């Protein structure tokens, strides 16, 4: 009996197998409900609850709110990535990957590309729903493309940070609950739901420097006023967080054995 070894899979094939597996994992788990159904319900609820109050305040909420929901959704995509990675770390799957002859970048790349795809789907769903209630891209097609790219980029960067946490965590449930606290604070103490002048005076500086404010303000500029100086803080934050979280993720990936 002659043993003919199967030809070794190339890195592209390895990546495809892992990415497909991660997609199946996302579909089987609770992430569709969390990243698509929940933001839609939240969006509808906030439109009903605040449209009138915000109109009295001088804000067209159907144009103001969708960028906030997009940012909230990208944060939820990142958090569910953390949950899935923590599960893989605990089940031993990541350790098993290490024993296989795979390129070092294949595992993290398959994670982040799938997270980008999940974010893109979630953002698209929100934008369709937003268009139904009156949201419009009034700054042209290029700015609209920039909107989607920035949103997905933010999701990937946050997912890298959450992946770093998830790799080090022993219990997916705990790290997930722990993440909901910063999620609550970061999404609300920002310009996502109300303009900065609605906050108490002492809190306004905090709101102004928040990366979530930068992101929401940039998305608003790209959807409404066109790419102006409001986009720069978001890009600076994106780059800084990409370096920080990328480094952290690479480190905890090397250590998780």
């Amino acid at each position, binding site marked *: 009996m002659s043993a003919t070894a199967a030809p070794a899979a190339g890195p592209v094939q390895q990546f495809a197998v892992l990415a497909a597996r991660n997609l199946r994992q996302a579909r089987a*788990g*609770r992430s569709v*409900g*969390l990243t698509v*159904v*929940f933001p839609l*319900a*939240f969006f509808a*609820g*906030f439109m*009903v*609850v*605040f449209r*009138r*109050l*915000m109109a009295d*305040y001088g804000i067209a909420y159907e144009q103001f709110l969708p960028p906030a929901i997009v940012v909230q959704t990208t944060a939820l995509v990142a958090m569910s990535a953390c949950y899935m990675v923590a599960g893989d770390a605990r089940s031993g799957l990541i350790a098993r990957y290490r024993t296989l002859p795979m390129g070092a970048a294949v595992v993290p790349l398959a994670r982040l590309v799938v997270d980008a795809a999940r974010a893109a789907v979630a953002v698209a769903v929100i934008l369709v729903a937003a268009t139904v209630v009156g949201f419009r891209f009034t700054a042209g097609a290029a700015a609209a493309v920039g909107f989607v790219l920035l949103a997905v980029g933010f999701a990937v960067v946050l997912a890298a940070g959450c992946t770093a946490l998830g790799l080090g965590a022993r*219990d997916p449930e*705990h790290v997930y*609950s*722990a993440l*909901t*606290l910063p999620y*609550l*604070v970061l999404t*609300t*103490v920002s310009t996502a*739901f*109300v303009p900065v002048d*609605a*906050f*108490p005076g002492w*809190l306004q500086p905090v709101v102004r420097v928040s990366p979530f404010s930068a992101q929401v303000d940039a998305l608003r500029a790209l959807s409404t006023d066109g790419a102006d100086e409001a986009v720069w803080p978001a890009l600076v934050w994106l780059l800084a967080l990409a370096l920080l979280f990328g480094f952290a993720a690479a480190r905890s990936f090397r250590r998780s054995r």
Partner: protein
Amino acid sequence: MSTLAQASLFAGRNLRRFFRAPPALVYAFAFPVLLLLTQYAVFGRIVGDGDRQHYLERLAPLVVLSTAAFGAPSSAVGFLRDLHGGLVDRLRTMPVRPGALLAGRVAGDVLRIVLIGLLTTSVAMLLGFRFRQGALAAVGFVAVIALFGLMWAAIALWRGSGPGDEQSLPPSLTGPATLLFIFSSGFVPVSAFPEVVQPVVRANPFSVATEALVGLSAGGPVLVPVLQTAAWVVGLGGICLLVALRRYARRTAS
């Protein structure tokens, strides 16, 4: 050993388990406090029409009540583990009265909800929340929290005894609870909602219980909202409890 003693044993066990899981414990206490602080800062000016304290009078009761709802997922998962993790089978070999486990769950849940509610109320008082209707009304305030907690304890038993696993249970409770929170008269005044939604907002259990707590703290109608809250607790809580009891009986009989 009387049923009562057995039930309090189970209640004590559940509370000890709650206090001995530090991450979950921090989360259980920190979440309502952060929810109160953030909503107060974000929406106080716009919803309170420029007056944050006015908003706090309604927001604080709502957040205190939400601790009952947001604690239900972990309680449901706890009951699920009791049912399928071997505890119930072990109890069948012992002279434990049927119902003691369920009564202990409910008692432990209500105690936990009241404790977290009291902490959240204290934080609200630091922000300026006040009891203006006297000591008896303040006692009534706590009683309404316990009553509302009773309903969510029953809902947790219903969900924990039904189909569903540890993964799917929590979102199936937090999702509807979040929507009820948003669509309540404590979050924004009823008049700010579109007319078609207003009856739903008024009937929302969070709304009626919030009105009861507002009446017992800042002032306002008390009797009607308390009766409405009681109707929700007896109606919805009662149905959930009956279904849970039947499922439990079937589980222990087979």
